[in-house]
């Protein structure tokens, strides 16, 4: 009996029906070979829509399904499940994209309809050649890799560990904590950042289910969902983590220094000790110092070894080398955070050349009670500023640098203004484009600041310079800005300027993305599976993104996303097994000439040569179904399941059959 194809055309409300003549399309479909029935419905993906297909399949009216609706990337799975429920192999279904690639992008109804007809004819022909495929299941390794130990990674790791699952947390820096560990207060509640973060860091360090690898970097990721093979480089600390008890004798006695010896207050800004052997900050987890090779006298000049002498536990080891650890995980969470935009590229702001121009991260460190200024706000010469300007949107919302809004700057600028008012008598100016105070309690915080005698000037700062005019301006910075509410260009002398720099993709995110086979957008952040419905998943199963790795966001949103990702991972682990793509490649032994061309083509090393039979063999567990070997085989011995030559030829014929 010939194949009987059922064609279902979706109106998608007016999304498709508004541009494509559904009646004409249905009439066209009815005349196609092998089409047993054609139905159209307002929303095929809705329950009644799905039921239409199910009842036709169950009644035995059809044995192949074509749904002409949105993109397969949207609903392929939905309709595959309908087939499954109806007792029909899900691979006997195919989808025609008449929305994203047709009705949404063409203006003219006649040509949209014509294109939809061609696309549908192709799908129907393809459907005839579809073959049932067997489901493949793989076991999921319950261990998870979390890349990045900022607040995002910490939250995700703790959620999983608390649920009793093993986590490997890899952090590039000597300590976890990320940017949040550098902050003194957090907006809008003005919670002390350390008070809410450090208990969580300690939990990470002590948790039996968390294997923390700090000062380490992921080098290689291979495998697929459920079974990723990970290789991590443990960078040499020159301090034996098992012996060190973090007593601090070494950095107290160390004669080297990581900061310029003769530097001013701003050049010497630091959270932890400024010595060559140091802890990044005093609450570091793990509480183990690391030697900075660049400034260490022993590594640079061959003499010193004072830290070795003062260490009672003999934990210093100058001969330590990078080591590698390999392990398997089932899922990966990317929580690599951000790096601040370097404002020195905006020459007219003078960062790096003018004194008293700081970035927001530097200003955070200055405000931090455990930092080098003890939380005091000071000018480079050590005196208290009398006036401070805060410049918003430096590198954000600017087509020359980053078009996007960094989402946190308005709020931390308000926080800065509040801290300045609290700690000094300085006048505060906020130079803003718009104030975006969108979160819970944010607008209220802004309202509160309006009552704290903070000045708000709406305008983008044009220039920061040293063009002083009067004697009392001689140590000051001159800010020129167009006050767009007054309609005048203003010249404002200030003692200090803080630049609210954009949140940029973390250095090395591209490399991580590539290792995980996920894509980055033009803004450099990783693209999520769906902007609304899949904000923590990616196109690669088993790889999740949280925090700024996905896009700029504040701490509450990051934490929420981290918990979302860990719950997504938990649901994977709890299933124990996951279905993976059945569409792999297969070698037909009789046709294989044993030329071995395909052997070296496979990026997953899934093809081996059987020396006895003299034919190549594909290991299905490793094959991901890209089809590169299929196109290369000179004997046509390899078939790509679900994308075989017959199916694609049929599709081509269908596309071009109307002419």
């Amino acid at each position: 009996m010939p194949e009987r194809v059922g064609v279902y055309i979706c109106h998608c409300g007016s999304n498709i029906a508004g541009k494509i003549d559904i009646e004409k399309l249905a009439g066209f479909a009815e005349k196609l070979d092998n089409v047993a029935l054609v139905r159209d419905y307002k929303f095929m993906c809705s329950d009644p829509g799905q039921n239409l297909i199910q009842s036709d399949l169950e009644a035995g009216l059809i044995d192949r399904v074509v749904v002409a609706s949105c993109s397969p990337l949207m609903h392929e799975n939905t309709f595959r499940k309908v087939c499954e429920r109806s007792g029909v192999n899900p691979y006997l279904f195919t989808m025609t994209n008449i929305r994203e690639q047709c009705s949404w992008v063409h203006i003219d109804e006649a040509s949209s309809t014509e294109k939809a007809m061609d696309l549908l004819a192709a799908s129907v022909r393809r459907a005839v050649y579809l073959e049932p495929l067997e489901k493949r299941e793989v076991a999921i390794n319950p261990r998870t890799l979390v890349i990045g130990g900022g607040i995002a990674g910490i939250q995700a790791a703790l959620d999983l560990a608390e649920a009793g699952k093993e986590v490997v947390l890899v952090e590039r820096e000597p300590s976890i904590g990320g940017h949040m560990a550098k902050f003194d207060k957090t907006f809008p509640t003005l919670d002390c950042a350390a008070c809410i973060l450090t208990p969580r860091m300690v939990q990470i360090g002590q948790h039996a289910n968390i294997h923390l690898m700090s000062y380490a970097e992921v080098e290689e990721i291979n495998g697929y969902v459920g079974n990723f093979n990970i290789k991590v480089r443990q960078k040499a600390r020159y301090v034996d983590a098992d012996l060190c008890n973090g007593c601090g004798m070494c950095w107290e006695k160390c004669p080297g220094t990581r900061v310029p010896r003769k530097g001013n207050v701003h050049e010497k800004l630091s959270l932890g000790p400024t010595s060559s052997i140091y802890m990044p900050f005093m609450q570091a987890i793990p509480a183990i110092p690391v030697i900075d090779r660049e400034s260490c006298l022993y590594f640079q000049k061959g003499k010193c070894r004072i830290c070795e002498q003062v260490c009672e536990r003999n934990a210093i080891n100058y001969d330590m080398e990078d080591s590698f650890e390999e392990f398997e995980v089932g899922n990966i969470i990317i929580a690599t955070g951000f790096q601040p935009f370097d404002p020195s590229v905006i020459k007219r702001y003078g960062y790096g050349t003018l004194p008293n121009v700081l970035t927001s991260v530097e200003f955070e460190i200055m405000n931090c009670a455990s930092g080098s200024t003890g939380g005091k706000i000071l000018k480079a010469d050590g005196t208290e500023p009398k006036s401070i300007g805060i410049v918003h949107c430096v590198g954000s919302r600017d087509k020359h640098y980053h078009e996007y809004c960094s989402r946190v700057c308005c709020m931390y600028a308000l926080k800065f203004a509040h801290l300045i008012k609290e700690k000094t008598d300085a006048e505060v100016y906020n130079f803003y484009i718009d104030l975006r105070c969108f979160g819970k309690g944010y607008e209220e915080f802004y309202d509160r600041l309006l009552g704290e005698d903070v000045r708000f000037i709406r305008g983008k700062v044009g220039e920061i310079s040293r063009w002083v005019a009067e004697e009392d301006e001689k140590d000051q910075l001159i800010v020129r800005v167009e006050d767009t509410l007054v309609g005048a260009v203003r010249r404002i002398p200030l003692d200090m300027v803080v630049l609210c720099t954009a949140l940029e993709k973390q250095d090395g995110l591209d490399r991580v993305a590539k290792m995980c086979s996920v894509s980055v957008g033009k803004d450099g952040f990783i693209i999520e599976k769906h902007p609304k419905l899949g904000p923590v998943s990616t196109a690669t199963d088993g790889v999740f993104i949280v925090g700024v790795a996905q896009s700029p966001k504040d701490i509450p949103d990051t934490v929420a996303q981290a918990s979302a990702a860990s719950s997504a991972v938990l649901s994977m682990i709890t299933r124990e097994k996951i279905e993976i793509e059945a569409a792999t490649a297969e070698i037909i032994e009789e046709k294989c000439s044993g030329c071995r061309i395909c052997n070296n083509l496979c990026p997953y090393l899934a093809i081996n040569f059987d020396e006895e039979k003299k034919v190549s063999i594909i290991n299905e567990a490793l094959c991901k179904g890209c089809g590169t070997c299929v196109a290369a085989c000179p004997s046509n011995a390899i078939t790509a399941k679900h994308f075989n030559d017959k199916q694609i030829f049929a599709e081509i014929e269908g596309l071009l059959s109307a002419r």
Partner: protein
Amino acid sequence: MEFEPKLVGFLCNWCSYTGADLAGTARISYAPNLRAIRVMCSGRIDPTFIIKALYEGADGVLIAGCHPGDCHYQEGNYKALRRYKLLKRILPEYGVEPERVHLEWVAASEGEKFAKVVNEFTDKIKKLGPLNMKQSIFDSMKEDIVVHESAGEEKGGEADEA
């Protein structure tokens, strides 16, 4: 009536098909001439697919894959590039202008680029005019026969299609 070319596109699932979807989500309109076929990777695109499409009546074929280094399967797009370059050398033998087959890298985030690529390709093929490959193969074979019989000078392979 103006000549409306019929174009076939082979798009890789991860970058280019997603990029084409993004053009849709962002409602960026472009020429309706291209009909896309989704493959998992541009590395799956067998040159015979392209010949088949041209033979069946397509006036041009667009191949789109992930940018170099971004391939979801690591390096399928490099394989596609090699095959594409070789194929372009062979096309004149069939009386087909090599410009009728075009490869472009389109990332998942490049909806705008996808629309631009389709528009430009459509314009290019409009200028080249329709292709009748079945006829041109016949013509080029006729020519080959002449070449063999006379065992004489090789012709460049450019079919003199009107």
